[in-house]
């Protein structure tokens, strides 16, 4: 697949919502270990809001902008702040109605950059960044010209990053108070973001 069309992007997002819904309870249970147990609901609610603007979209920049506004205006909490920021950052680095691998790389890098403006969490802090940062890095380091392969590399890296959080001690936000108790469980945010990246690749 040489070009990511807006229709293929719509399929990616719909598939992500479908997969996240299937695992909603799992994400909430993981979150309950060191948080308030609502991450499954939060990520499903946040992703559900983007479907309406997505449906009517014809080009990347405006559709991603509208998706970011929808997430931020219709929901609240850290999950939607970061997901909304991701879409707004992608919007700033995308244009037209189809993207080649370089366009896709730039779009995802822009998303990560804007998320990093909202959170100080780094790799290793046991947060969603443990899936997102490796996924975007893997894309930047890939030399494929195929968009599906590019997203497969992101999905692999995100999955590995999420699995790595099992061994980590929570180091960020409220979860930090749980310290050693957090070891042995994957982070709910890293797990849901790796689920999204897997669904992105699968949809292509």
């Amino acid at each position: 697949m040489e070009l990511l069309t807006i229709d293929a992007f719509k399929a990616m997002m719909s598939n992500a919502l479908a997969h996240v819904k299937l695992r909603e309870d799992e994400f909430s249970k993981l979150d309950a270990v060191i948080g308030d147990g609502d991450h499954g609901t939060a990520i499903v609610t946040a992703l559900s809001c983007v479907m309406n603007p997505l449906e009517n979209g014809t080009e990347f920049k405006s559709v991603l902008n509208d998706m970011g506004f929808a997430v931020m205006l219709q929901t609240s909490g850290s999950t939607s702040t970061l997901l909304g920021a991701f879409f707004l950052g992608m919007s700033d680095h995308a244009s037209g109605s189809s993207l080649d691998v370089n366009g896709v790389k730039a779009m995802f890098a822009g998303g990560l950059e804007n998320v990093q403006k909202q959170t100080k969490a780094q790799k290793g802090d046991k947060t969603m960044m443990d899936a997102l940062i490796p996924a975007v890095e893997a894309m930047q380091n890939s030399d494929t010209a195929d968009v599906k392969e590019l997203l497969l590399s992101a999905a692999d890296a995100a999955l590995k990053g999420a699995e790595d959080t099992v061994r980590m001690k929570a180091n960020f936000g409220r979860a930090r108070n749980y310290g050693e108790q957090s070891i042995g469980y994957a982070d709910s945010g890293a797990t849901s973001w790796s689920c999204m990246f897997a669904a992105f690749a699968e949809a292509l």
Partner: protein
Amino acid sequence: MSANKIKFINNPENITQELLEGYVMAYKDKVALGGENIVVRVHPKSEDKVAIVTLGGSGHEPALSGFVGEGMLDCSVVGDIFAAPGAQRLFQALQMFKREAGILLVVLNHSGDVMSANMACQLAERVGIKVKRLLTHDDISAGIGAPKDDRRGLAGCVPLFKIIGAAAEEGKSLDELLEIGERFCDNVATLAVAMRSCTHPQNNGIITDLPEGIMEIGMGQHGEGGGGRQPLVSADETASQMVDLLLQQLKPAAGDKLMLIINGVGATTHMELNIIYRKSCLVLEEKGFDVAEGRIQEILTVQEQAGFQMIIARLDADHIDYLKNKRADAPYWVTIGK
């Protein structure tokens, strides 16, 4: 004892709406509701001047909406009990106050408020609204010299509203206001003490249980623990300990002009607050400081909590002028001015 047996409330779900409605009825010559849970001035300042907007949960009355009025805030965006308002409501308020001069958004450093502010400002900037954030972080319970990000925003925001409100009324630009405000934020420190924790009026929960005869210095706005538990001591001893900690943070020089505010947080009487003020002021004067501005008032409270916040600021000539000489006419803060 459950909270609903100790409070005059109706349906707990309606607390915020009902309290705001009562408030704007009582002060209808000064404040009005400009939208759901958005409090605005009845007589807005002219559009060529920077608007000052803030946000925060309810349950802390008279804060923050009590300071909406001439010479102070233009708008307060209110969340539910102890909860930040969502980004949507804040974005709505920013749209209402869109102007070329810009908006200064004062954010108390609490994660929910910061997050809503970040979201709303991101969206606002994308639709061409000029807005800058001023983060308050006056609490020193995280430790003397702790990084700003680790310090919560407490009642020190209220004299800040007075200062930047007066400066905005005078026509200062957004950048000038940010500088004046940051200069005050860097020179104000607050410490809270509690001897009984607060309750949550919607779920009857007690947020931190403090045993009888114990006080905690450093307790947060909602009774979150701050670490400094000790047996209750006299008013004079409590005041001296707290002044000492605040001075370690502020490091004023002899002769500096200081502001001292004792803010009651709900269940401590003005009788006690006056006794605390007396000793605090005496200690400061003995050390050679000039207590140029003082106040004993419930400016930012929390349900049923017994205790107070002590706020000390080192004032420069600008800040004194804005605090004392410029007119303010908000329901809970009036200055005649010169």
